[in-house]
């Protein structure tokens, strides 16, 4: 007997890292009896090792809970857990689109952060009912009144009915469930209409193929049904329909308003694009659900193995990762300095770090990553427009009529005392101020337009430093700026090292070239001859440093004839050089290829 839609509630939790989203989710599962305390592994929903370690959610989840409310009725609550990082804001928007309500969880001792704010705006724009929840009220530093003030000031929500809780002790958590039932509207939609279901996440399971998380808006998704994916027209037969409780449980169908998963013998997550619409093959919907976008990578870098023999292993690892993550892209590239590798595109820096870490951890690869950059749009003098995301493919200055670079709108929330340092940083990063406002007596919200190219270099670390960690950042792509970008090359002993080239704003090229050459001087060990390190734009040398020749490397003592030790020392020295990349006659250590990320440090 299907449940009346009036008793369905679909909701998400919006929270900043460490504000207690996962702990609250665990409490809700416990309270609704979805899991016994014994079954609880701390933070059930973050199942990837990386997610638990970093305390963040990378993949979305959807859990069905049955709740007997104070009015005596049994409600079906679908909790949709969303990724919590700016890199995945599109995924978040699709998860939120699957809900009618959201809990906005704010740490009573920390206040509203930029990430929370951005996701709240997405929720508000999607027409969601937002229930403010003030967490960690058990902490001595909790300030409920100030937190309410900030929610009202920054998000613009009435916080009078905010639910004060402690997810840790469980205090107030039952009130959250009641608020969901009372305040989140039931889903609309008719199970007899033509099928319209939203894909809000999917992943690849090596035993079962692709598993799709979906929200049915109209119609009914059934086992055995032939479905069609709107964006690519591909047709599949639904094999399994189910819900997560959080254990997967098969059910026969998902009706309009319901959330669950299905499998349809799909082999590739690239087919199941997030935001796409699923409809019935024989009786398709008239139109797709709104909001679908093709995900585009924003940050690009070259990935190479330290050991050239591992190149094939890297390719296989990338193929496997891509099965599970259609949002990252790769294509073979070769570098004169680093040999054969792959140009990879990522949603953002965190995404890049995650992919790198998974390659190293799950596949045991040792990698060299080149400096991350963005995709520039170049109008050539002949009028053609090309996109370039790899400095080694940059055109010669005479072919370039105009360069446009991607720009983001960044929202930074911080405490008053750090504003000075942050303003200096964003100005240095070529930012343009859009707004500056106090969201409470001591909390400031800054909005800046910034070139993405500046963000990918060292912005996060610098922001963390100048704010001592008390600043949060969120951003989204807002457009393009025409900028005088130039390619900066690094020459080692007269030879350009392609893997060290970067694209920079002309006004900063001199300074960055100097800093980069100085950093390289620090990182490149002394060789048997003097090594010149030069920074150049085109044929023009803009900076020069010299690594002096090594003066001595000699073992004097004979240790009473201990030749074995001498030999071991020579072998160790030889091994050390093998771990470096030899370019021309010069041995360059791996760190040097990421030096460009470090040149801003301490300045």
């Amino acid at each position, binding site marked *: 007997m299907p449940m009346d839609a009036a008793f369905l509630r679909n909701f998400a939790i919006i929270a900043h890292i460490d504000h207690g989203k996962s702990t609250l989710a665990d409490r809700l599962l416990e309270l609704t009896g979805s899991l016994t305390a014994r079954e609880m592994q701390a933070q059930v929903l973050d199942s990837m090792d990386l997610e638990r370690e970093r305390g963040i959610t990378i993949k979305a989840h959807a859990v069905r809970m049955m709740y007997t409310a104070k009015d005596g009725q049994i409600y079906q609550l679908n909790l949709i857990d969303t990724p919590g990082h700016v890199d995945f804001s599109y995924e978040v928007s699709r998860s939120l689109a699957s809900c009618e309500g959201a809990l906005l969880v704010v740490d009573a001792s920390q206040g509203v952060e930029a990430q929370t704010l951005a996701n709240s705006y997405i929720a508000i724009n999607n027409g969601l009912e937002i229930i403010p929840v003030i967490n960690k009220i058990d902490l001595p530093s909790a300030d409920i009144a100030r937190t309410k003030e900030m929610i009202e000031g920054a998000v613009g929500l009435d916080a009078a009915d905010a639910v004060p809780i402690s997810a840790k002790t469980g205090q107030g958590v039952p009130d959250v469930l009641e608020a969901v039932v009372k305040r989140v509207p039931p889903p609309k939609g008719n199970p007899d209409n033509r099928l319209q279901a939203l894909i809000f996440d999917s992943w690849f399971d090596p035993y079962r193929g692709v598993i799709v998380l979906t929200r049915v808006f109209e119609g009914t998704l059934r086992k055995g049904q032939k479905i069609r994916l709107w964006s690519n027209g591909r047709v599949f037969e639904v094999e399994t329909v189910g819900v997560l409780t959080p254990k997967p449980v098969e059910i026969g169908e998902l009706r309009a308003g319901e959330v669950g998963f299905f499998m349809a013998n799909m082999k590739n997550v690239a087919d199941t694009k997030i935001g796409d619409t699923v409809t019935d093959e024989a009786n398709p919907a008239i139109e797709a659900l709104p909001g679908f976008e093709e995900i585009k990578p924003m940050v690009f870098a070259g990935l190479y193995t330290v050991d050239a023999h591992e190149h094939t292993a890297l390719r296989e690892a990338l193929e496997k990762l891509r099965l599970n993550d259609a949002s990252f892209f790769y294509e073979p590239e070769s570098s004169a300095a680093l040999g054969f590798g792959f140009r990879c595109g990522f949603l953002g820096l965190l995404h890049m770090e995650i992919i790198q870490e998974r390659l190293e951890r799950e596949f045991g690869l040792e990698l060299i990553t080149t400096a991350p950059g963005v995709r520039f749009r170049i109008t050539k003098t002949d009028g053609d427009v090309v996109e370039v995301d790899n400095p080694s493919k940059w055109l010669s200055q005479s072919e370039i009529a105009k360069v446009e670079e991607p720009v983001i709108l960044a929202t930074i929330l911080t405490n008053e005392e750090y504003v000075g340092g942050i303003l200096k940083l964003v100005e240095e990063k070529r930012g343009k101020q859009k707004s500056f406002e106090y969201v409470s007596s001591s909390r400031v919200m800054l909005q800046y337009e910034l070139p993405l190219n500046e963000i990918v270099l060292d912005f996060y670390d610098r922001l963390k430093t100048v704010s001592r960690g008390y600043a949060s950042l969120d951003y989204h792509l807002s457009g393009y700026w025409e900028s005088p970008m130039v390619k900066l090359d690094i020459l080692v002993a007269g030879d350009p090292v392609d893997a060290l080239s970067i694209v920079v704003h002309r006004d900063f090229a001199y300074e960055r070239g100097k800093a980069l050459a100085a950093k390289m001087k620090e990182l490149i060990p002394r060789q048997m001859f003097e090594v010149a390190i030069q920074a150049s734009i085109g044929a023009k040398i803009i900076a020069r440093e010299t690594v002096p020749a090594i*003066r001595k490397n*000699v073992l*004097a003592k004979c240790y009473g004839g201990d030749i074995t030790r001498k030999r071991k020392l020579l072998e160790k020295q030889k091994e050390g050089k093998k771990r470096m990349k030899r370019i021309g006659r010069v041995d360059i250590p791996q760190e040097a290829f990421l030096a460009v990320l470090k040149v801003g440090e301490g300045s």
Partner: protein
Amino acid sequence: MAMPLGLYLSVPFCRTKCSYCNFASDVFSRAVFHRYVDRVCADIENAAGITEQMGGRFERAVDSIYLGGGTPTVLDSPELERLFVTISQNLEVRPGCEITVECAPGTLAPDILETLLHCGVNRVSLGVQSFVDAEAASVGRLHQRTTVLDDIAHLRAAGITNINLDLIAGLPHQTAESWEASLSEAIASGTPHASVYMLEVDEDSRLGRELIAGGTRYHAHFVPDEELTADLYESACQRLDAAGVCQYEISNFARAGYESRHNLKYWIRQPYLGFGLDAHSMLPALDPGVEAVRFSTPDALEEYVAGGPLRCTAVTPQAALEESFFLGLRLTRGVDLDALRAKFGALDGFDSLIAEFASMGLMVREHDLVRLTSRGRLLSNEVFERFISVL
């Protein structure tokens, strides 16, 4: 006819441990001296057995003996005597055998000197390190300049004129001027042999660890930089050469005919047997497929005294050839490719390597004689690295 052996006896005891020392030597209570000498004597008595057990070919004839340390002269006369008696009873000490003892200046008491003479010692190596008192004191040496000069006078009066002075370039507080003063003293002393080392910075000495950590203990922040140390070494080569004390190995200088026979054995791969703590041996192998065997004793005192196991490495013909290069090239006379070909067969691949280093000014080749230039000696590890294959 088999080649006579060099004998090395390690005496790892010191009055104090110098900050730059990266040897197994240390300050031990005198109570262990007797047990230690017992152990060394037992090993000497069993030399033939140990050698064969290690797969090496034993030889009774000995033409050099070297008591190194540590500070062998911290042993008292009866213990020193016991060592030499055991050697002469178990091995055949050839007439004219070079017998060297290392001494810390100030440890040559009259009774010790008399014992050394009585035991046939004909060469003494003095660990001077610096003639500048403040420099010697900064690394924990207990002597002064005058102590060294007195010791030299006493040795000569006793008839020992074959004296070596050890000097270290790169000690804390050293300057070009102070180094010049030390060199002048060494030359003026008229001793026929000098060893010049550059301070080694590694994890095995207190000063080395401090330098790596960037700290200020042991006067580490007063240690000259790499450039100055290299300059000091080069000036020593020139000054000594001009005085007729000519360089014959990276760290060794001598008047003609005073080259150390014992130390040369290490570089030209002649057989030697080592006894005592962390002592090393190299002998021709019994196994015809192996060129030589190298073995060594434990480097922890208790383990050694308790008769801990030896460590043995078989030297294959390929490894022996590589050794011939990275040891032989330490000598200013270099290596003779013709002799190596006669012993090891064709020298594939080495010609281009030699040509490469010659083009960089690190090596000189004259027909089949190959040697390092003075710059090549300073960068010898960079050169040698290319002559070895990593297994």
